[in-house]
């Protein structure tokens, strides 16, 4: 745990960017400097090749927070900070962001984090 903590941030950012671009065929994947609870962090944006959810708009810009699973824990204050940092960067608070979680075996899984309580998607 301690060992891989040293890498959190930098490694996951690059791997998530590469995974988005090369594996998931996203376009315009970019980095944005952010400050989460006093720590400099990177938040990504990109455009998925097709709508992620039926109700999305075509070519909708998606916000992605890369995280290394080895960092262990997360609290609601920090998640709230992501939303407010994105609001600072882009001018509005998004309804959802995507968590790009990377494991130490390089597996990357993506989860939506919606702001507030939402209904499950119809599918």
């Amino acid at each position, binding site marked *: 745990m301690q060992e891989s903590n040293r890498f959190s941030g930098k490694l996951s950012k690059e791997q998530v960017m590469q*995974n988005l671009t090369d*594996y*998931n065929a996203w376009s315009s994947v970019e980095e944005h400097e952010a400050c989460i609870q006093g720590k400099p962090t990177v938040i990504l944006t990109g455009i*998925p090749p097709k709508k*992620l*959810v039926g109700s999305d708009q075509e070519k909708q810009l998606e916000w992605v927070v890369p*995280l290394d*699973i080895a*960092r*262990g*824990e*997360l*609290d*609601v*204050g920090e*998640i*709230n900070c992501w939303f407010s940092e994105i609001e600072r960067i882009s001018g509005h608070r998004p309804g959802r962001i*995507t*968590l*790009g*979680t990377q494991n130490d075996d390089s597996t*990357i*899984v*993506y*989860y*939506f*984090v*919606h*702001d*507030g*309580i*939402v*209904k*499950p*998607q119809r599918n």
Partner: protein
Amino acid sequence: MEVEGEETECSMILLPLIGDRVMIFDVEDVKKLRKLGILGVLTGTLPSAPQQNVFHGIPLELGIYEVIWLVENGYGTIVDSLKMHEEVEKQSKSEMSRQNRERVIGDFTHIPNSPAVNSVHSNDPVGAVGLREFIVSRCPTNEALRALLTDYFVFRSVRQNGYQVMPGLRFGGDMIAYPGDPLRYHSHLIVRPLRGPVNLLDIVAGGRLATGVKKVWVIGGLLQEDKTKIQEITIEEESIDQILESEVKPISFSIEWAGFG
């Protein structure tokens, strides 16, 4: 029991405290609670089908958050069941003969569960237990009390969003929330109140499970400002009522699998 119509509407639902549980034996009260979206858990055996455990009957056991919510919103009063019954017993003895109280039906003696004595269905019943007293009896330490309050605020905010809440063990959460009566709807949310940080692996596991059963995994917790307010509460002081009234608002996020990657 025989009170009906408008009088029932305005009278408090009695929440009898038996040992450390609140259990409702009166079917009319169970119906009233259901209409309020307070579901509880039926724990008794159905006399007509005693050999199965899929369907249950009275008593309805209420969870601690449900009890706090009912009292906070003025729908119910907690009563010490033993004290209430002792008092009723005393009154009955002086008011009527033993023959009147106990009706003999066949070989059985029938004693009514909730004797219809005026003091029982009033807004100031005998043996009333204060909310603060009830909460502290369940949470003997400051830590336990703060944890309970944090969880309760999440419960309350889920209810304020129009959801009805049941215990969540079935889906690996603390609560599950339904958009209406659970007999008519599937649940939408698996709720995890957070007293501290959440493990990232739990987010992955919870999100994956919830998405697999067409739900979302909801985490709710307090921001620093509200956490500080909670940290100041101790079991000795009178401020639990104030804290319940105060605008402590948990913040929630809904997590589901993104469907790609």
